[in-house]
């Protein structure tokens, strides 16, 4: 299951037939393979319970905190196998996972949220310029940088969660449903900022979304995951044109998501 060397050079993340077990019994993903090219932007789509968050946690190492573990397969980051490494080590290597539900540090100010995420080794001057950089991407945060983060609006909290992740100096940013519960204009604003950061900093992005319409606008390709398996992998263009995707995930106009859809036909399994 090892990759060809030329692929290792072009992919920042490569996940090969990964299985995840929770509590040693619950098989949540069943052989997921995903590649994220260096500097690329990839979407991971799927309905509720499909295994999207589990996939991200396997990559970031946060599985351990939920009594889950990778029971098969291999994950490598920039050519290094990271499957068994602790989460903290993976952050140091440059993987940052913005977890589901915009979990900002509620009793800290946005400014303190950013400081908390900066590595302790970062010196004062760099810390200041790094914070400045985040505030330039998210001017709304700058306006409220000294109020309590718990009282920010949902959109501002999502921006803060992303900004906080950027403070760890990631090379791969993983976002778990950043659009959840946000008004369409905010989704558009946040997604355009993510796209901008991806372009300007060559930051690779793995974006988990139920909002396929918005996600497919900014990524180059996407994976569709159902019941813990990848059932489709194609370019964003092709996915948008795909009749099944259109019917199930894009049909309802803007803001469509998968909440009502139970299962995607596995006949359409092109790649796994």
């Amino acid at each position, binding site marked *: 299951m090892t990759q060809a060397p030329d692929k290792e050079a072009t992919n920042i993340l490569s996940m090969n037939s990964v299985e995840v077990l929770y509590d040693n019994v619950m098989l949540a993903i069943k052989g997921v393979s995903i590649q994220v090219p260096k500097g690329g932007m990839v979407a991971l789509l799927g309905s509720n319970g499909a295994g999207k968050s589990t996939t991200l946690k396997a990559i970031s190492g946060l599985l351990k*905190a939920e009594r889950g573990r990778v029971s098969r397969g291999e994950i490598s980051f920039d050519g290094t196998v990271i499957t068994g490494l602790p*989460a903290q080590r993976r952050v140091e290597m440059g993987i*940052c996972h*913005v*977890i589901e539900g915009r*979990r900002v540090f509620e009793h*800290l100010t946005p400014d303190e949220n950013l400081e*908390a995420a900066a*590595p302790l080794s970062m010196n004062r001057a760099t810390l200041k310029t790094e914070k400045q950089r985040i505030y330039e991407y998210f001017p709304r945060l700058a306006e409220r940088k000294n109020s309590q983060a*718990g009282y920010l609006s949902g959109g501002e909290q999502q921006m803060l969660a992303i900004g906080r992740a950027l403070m760890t100096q990631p090379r791969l940013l993983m976002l778990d449903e950043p659009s959840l519960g946000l008004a369409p204009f905010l989704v558009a604003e946040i997604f355009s900022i993510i796209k901008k950061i991806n372009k300007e900093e060559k930051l690779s992005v793995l974006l988990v979304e139920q909002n396929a319409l918005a996600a497919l606008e900014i990524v180059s390709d996407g994976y569709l995951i159902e019941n813990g398996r990848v059932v489709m992998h194609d370019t964003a263009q092709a996915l948008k044109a795909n009749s099944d995707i259109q019917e199930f995930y894009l049909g309802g106009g803007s803001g469509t998501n998968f909440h009502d859809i139970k299962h995607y036909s596995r006949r359409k399994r092109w790649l796994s």
Partner: protein
Amino acid sequence: MELVFLAELAANGALTGLLYSLFAIGLVLIYKASSVPNLAQGGLTMVGAYIVLALARDIGLPLWVAIPLAAVVMFGFGMGIERVALRRLAGRPIVMILMMTLGIDIFLRGTTLAIWGGTSRSVELGVGYDPLFIGDVLISRIHLVGAAVALLLFVVFVLFFRSRLGIRLRAIADDYMASWSVGISVERGVGLSWGLASIVAVAAGVIWGEIQGVDQSLSLLLLKGLTVAVLGGLDSIFGAVLAGLILGILENVGSTYLDPFVGGGSRDLIVAAVLILTVMLRPHGLFGRQDIERV
């Protein structure tokens, strides 16, 4: 005359109260990082005092060496307790963790009894017992010193929680998962809070040991310390200081007026009333962190 007497009661009550705060700050540090009320804080305070005694009386080091050295030893000891006994319980029900800290407290009492026996010994800080008058008000010198130490620690910790390390500890207190996600070591943070609380225990142990002698009864400070911490809000250092002042004054003034009616013992009644009423009427205490509910 009556007014001077009242002032004296209030002033000495306030000083004693700050000594409760001194103890309670240790509880708050651990609670802030891990939401665990540390029932072993009394035991830690007692051990802190014994270690100072061992270094100063048994080995013969001067106090200005013995106390900082004891602080270093206790810092390691506190981190060790977290590492060995508590880390494995992460994610278990809070009662299990509480019972563990209770077990540690009992263990520490038993161990000190086995090593140093149960005879009360004095720290001999050399503060002096001759009366000190501020205006017409008679003040206890050792209480004054202890209160100053409490206020100093208060300032130190307020500043600490604004530092980058302190901000990280507060982040941990807010959300373990989010902390891990940005590379903050929750385990090390909680360990650090135990280490710091153990340093506070040395300060409290020395002052209280000087006042009432060093023996196993020092660990009973937990009851008043916990009352103060709960009244202050459990995770607020400022709350602990203010609550200490309130409880100290209430207790000293109240008991003087109540004792003749109930035939003594009203101090404990006042403490009990404060604890029970706080839990009933204001469970988050005066300055406790409330979970934010956004509209």
